[in-house]
């Protein structure tokens, strides 16, 4: 028995449902199946290989490095970009001069395509005559090849990503900050709370839903944003900037090993699913309290 509501709802849901099935659910299932088959090449069709790709992966040093790199990348980018975003929002929300200009400055990286700014950053990072190395040279720390050494290359990319994301997240925090009733803050001040206490006791708890929303976006970006890897390092030197999605892209569209790429995608899907489960667990509690 179909309810009246369902009869109205389904036609409304149909376009979204069809697109989600075709571009999210079907490819997810198909990727799982592809991951168990070999890559068809020339006249050799795909064959069942079972867990073969995953066995290869276990012995693939590049995959291991990409995995570890991506964890470091995410573990730094998520807190750093969110913390900076909050700081920026608080600054722009305070009574400072030229607020609109400062706000615009923070937001510019969001508008600039990553692929375009990558070349500008390449100049900043250039050894000796690049801007950053020149500044470091003033204090006697020059001569760094920031993108060309395995110890610093990933960090150089992390800086770009944080720069890119912080301004975007700031907008969300700013919107939330401006919705905090001034009366609440005044009441806290009357009770003798200093700025730090106001932040900890009043502002941060009220920003919690925003923080969760931004967190989801930050996690997604940490596994999705590889444009600058393509433009700057192509995963080098010696795979020190290899990230999961970039490796998938390379294996699928440079090496044409679609079977192995599917297996790598399964790992990425697994990581995202795990994070989603944890997040929804936390999110669920929040929804109840709201």
């Amino acid at each position, binding site marked *: 028995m179909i309810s009246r509501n369902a009869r109205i709802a389904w036609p409304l849901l149909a376009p979204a449902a069809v697109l989600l099935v075709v571009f999210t659910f079907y490819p997810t299932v198909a990727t799982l199946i592809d991951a168990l088959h070999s890559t068809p*090449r*020339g*006249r050799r069709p795909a064959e069942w290989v079972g867990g073969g790709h995953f066995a290869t992966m276990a012995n693939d040093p*590049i995959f291991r490095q990409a995995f570890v790199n991506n964890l470091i990348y995410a573990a730094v980018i998520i807190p750093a970009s969110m913390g900076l975003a909050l700081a920026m929002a608080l600054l722009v929300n305070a009574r400072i001069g030229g607020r609109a200009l400062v706000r615009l400055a923070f937001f510019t990286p969001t508008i600039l395509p990553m692929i375009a700014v990558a070349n500008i950053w*390449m100049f900043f990072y*250039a*050894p*000796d*005559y690049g801007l950053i190395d020149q500044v470091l*040279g003033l204090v*006697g720390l*020059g*001569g760094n*090849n920031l*993108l*060309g*050494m*395995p110890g610093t290359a990933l960090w150089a990319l992390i800086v770009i990503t944080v720069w890119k994301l912080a301004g975007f997240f700031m907008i969300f925090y700013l919107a939330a900050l401006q919705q905090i009733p001034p009366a609440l803050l005044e009441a806290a001040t009357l009770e003798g709370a200093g700025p730090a206490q106001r932040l900890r006791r009043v502002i941060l708890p009220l920003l919690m839903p925003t923080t969760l929303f931004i967190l989801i976006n930050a996690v997604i970006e940490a596994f999705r944003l590889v444009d600058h890897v393509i433009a700057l*390092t*192509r*995963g*080098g*030197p*010696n*795979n020190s900037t290899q990230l999961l999605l970039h490796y998938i892209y*390379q294996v699928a*569209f*440079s*090496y*044409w*090993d679609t079977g192995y790429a599917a297996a790598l995608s399964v790992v990425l899907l697994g990581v995202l699913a795990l994070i989603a489960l944890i997040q929804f667990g936390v999110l669920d509690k929040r929804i109840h309290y709201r």
Partner: protein
Amino acid sequence: MTPISLTRTLLGSAAISLAVLSPALAQTEITFFYPVQVGGPLTEVVDGYVAEFEAQNPDITVEAIYSGSYTDTTTRALTAARSGTPPTVAVMLATDIFTLIDAGVIAPLDEHITTPEDQAWLDGFMPAYLASARLDGHVWGAPFQRSTAVMYYNKEAYAAAGLDPETPPATWDEMVAHGRALTLRDASGTVTQWGLGIPGSSNAAHWLFGALVAQNGGQLSSEDGLHTFFDSPEVIGALEYWVSLGAEHGIHPPGVLEWGTTPSDFMEGRLAMAWTTTGNLGNIRANAPFDFGVAAYPGNPDPASVLGGGNLYLFADASDEEKAAAFRFIKHMTSDDLLADWGIQTGYVAPRDGSWDTQALQDYVAEVPQADVARRQIAVSVPEISTYEGQRVNEVLNAAIQAALTGQQSPADALTAAQAEAERILAVYRD
């Protein structure tokens, strides 16, 4: 209007009206993918060549598509071929031949060679360049924008260091000696000018390393594309030399030098000697604020360099008419005159002896003697590393080179591991 051109015009318009009226003479459309370079007005040059061809062949239209870097072009062409819409002709790396044949997307050119003129056209290519297009008794590509690796050096820095600006190094030892003289430090010990820079980033390391290996008497891959020799003593020795330039002699900047910034590094005076492609001649000639020289590579003991660049390939999926039209287009794009002009416009090495005999190229060499260095070096140049799954094998080699250059692994360890990985990749193709 002279009588001749009047006749031509009449014939021409007759041909056009015939083409319009008769379905038998319908237009054949071909698509042409080629990589584009930064900054240059080269797309206009190519458009000019295409327009010239269309004027001579009114029954053919060519859609020329600028498709990014070499890697991008190959990816795009393969992607398009897999979805059933391949280009008819594309300029792709000479070393892509195994990948392209394995994917079954290209057709041999020799099937179209029917007349003595066609044969003469084929024989006109320099054997060193044509060798990279031959496999299994067929010719699979026509050399087009070919290059070799050369060394650019700052003549003013040479003079300032008390070296003879007309005598670049001829051996590895001399190169180190020159590098030491050219490396300058300020009062605090910070290097202000490095003696030598060899790019080691992922888009160039495997190519330039091929030159070092050849200089050391070794080779990176077998001619059938099925074997690599990364752990041979010659290859390990070549990488040890490269690493020693920075680690031992202190004349090479630390870490991996980025290919993309190497020309700027040279022009900014950060590098006194820089290894890169002949294709950079135009850029450096226009923008270097000092007198510079182009030198052939040194040897250990025999000098050698590495060939590079792209061939024109014909795609298998095209119809017979399209292939015939495309073959005419390929011949047009590789005529003596056109390749001479392309070389002058870009700095690429014209891969035909006939081109170097043209007045245009001879005048150019008289004006820019640096341009002739590349041609003189071809006799001692080896093909670029080329294997099945070429991009993957190259990445394996690049990672090993970078591991050694950045001090993560010794050259021998890095290359032994790379050889094992390459073996694993190539084993599938040997049965």
